[in-house]
């Protein structure tokens, strides 16, 4: 399979994730959509790595996975803190920082 197919799949998954971040209001689902975008980037990185025969892209993808795990831990901690404070789990309601 040529690299173009992988890149198009990656772009499609990225756009689905970006659209999900814009459409959904539950912060849990927004985190999931960010995961989608990170995974799309990972697919592109691994594809480029394969095409060059160079392992650096795979290392990059693994580091991205580490960052994603950190982001999930912090994001879920924030959501649990929101739930503990009886705040609504809805990003449209949480706009104190909007000014």
């Amino acid at each position, binding site marked *: 399979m040529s690299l173009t197919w992988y*890149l198009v799949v990656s772009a499609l998954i990225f756009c689905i994730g970006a659209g999900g971040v814009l459409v959904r209001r*539950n912060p849990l689902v927004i985190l999931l959509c960010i995961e989608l975008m990170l*995974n799309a980037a990972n697919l592109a990185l691994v594809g480029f*790595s*394969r095409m060059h025969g160079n392992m650096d892209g795979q290392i990059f993808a693994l580091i991205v996975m580490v960052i994603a795990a950190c982001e999930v831990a912090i994001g879920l901690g924030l959501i*649990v803190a929101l739930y503990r*404070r009886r705040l609504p789990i809805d990003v449209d309601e949480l706009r104190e920082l909007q000014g």
Partner: protein
Amino acid sequence: MAEVIFFIAAIGAIAGAVGTVALRNPFYSVLALVCHLLALAALFLLLRAEFVAAAQVVVYAGAVMVLYVFVVAYVGGSGEPLTASTGATLRFASLIFALALFAELTIALVGTSLSALNSDGAPYESGFGSPAEVGELFLTKFLLAFELASLLLLIAAVGAVILARRRTGLGDPREISVADVMRVTASDAPPETMLEAGGPPHR
């Protein structure tokens, strides 16, 4: 054969992504994302990234998604209406934006005229993508990134614990924390001095 597996995995990945965005119950969204991650691991295997695929299944679809499932079960996966009362036009605009982004990305990627775009890639060498190669690169060329990643994981773990810990005064009064138990047992203990017992009864 590779084409068949690619299309099955790609369709699975895209369907999982669509399910993640479109399903109303966050619990089902998490399950759709697990399907997406498994299909993506198959794509990684096709790209000869064995260790990345294994890490994807074990770390992502295993550990991280279990964390998600726990939080969804704790917070309660209440089905949110997809259409907000005010956001119908916003939703339409974001769909348009996503489609435009896809078109732009595809044009940008396909139009780059990279020489590798239409080839099958570099010739496969044995050991490419194996854990031994990944480990060697992590400990030689990317040592700084490796150490920083471990530090970042530590910071994230501490931050998550601090964010999600139980604060006094904000917790549910029906819940019993360790501090409450300690307080109750302390007050139930027999008073040791007369002052603690309330002092002399007269006066």
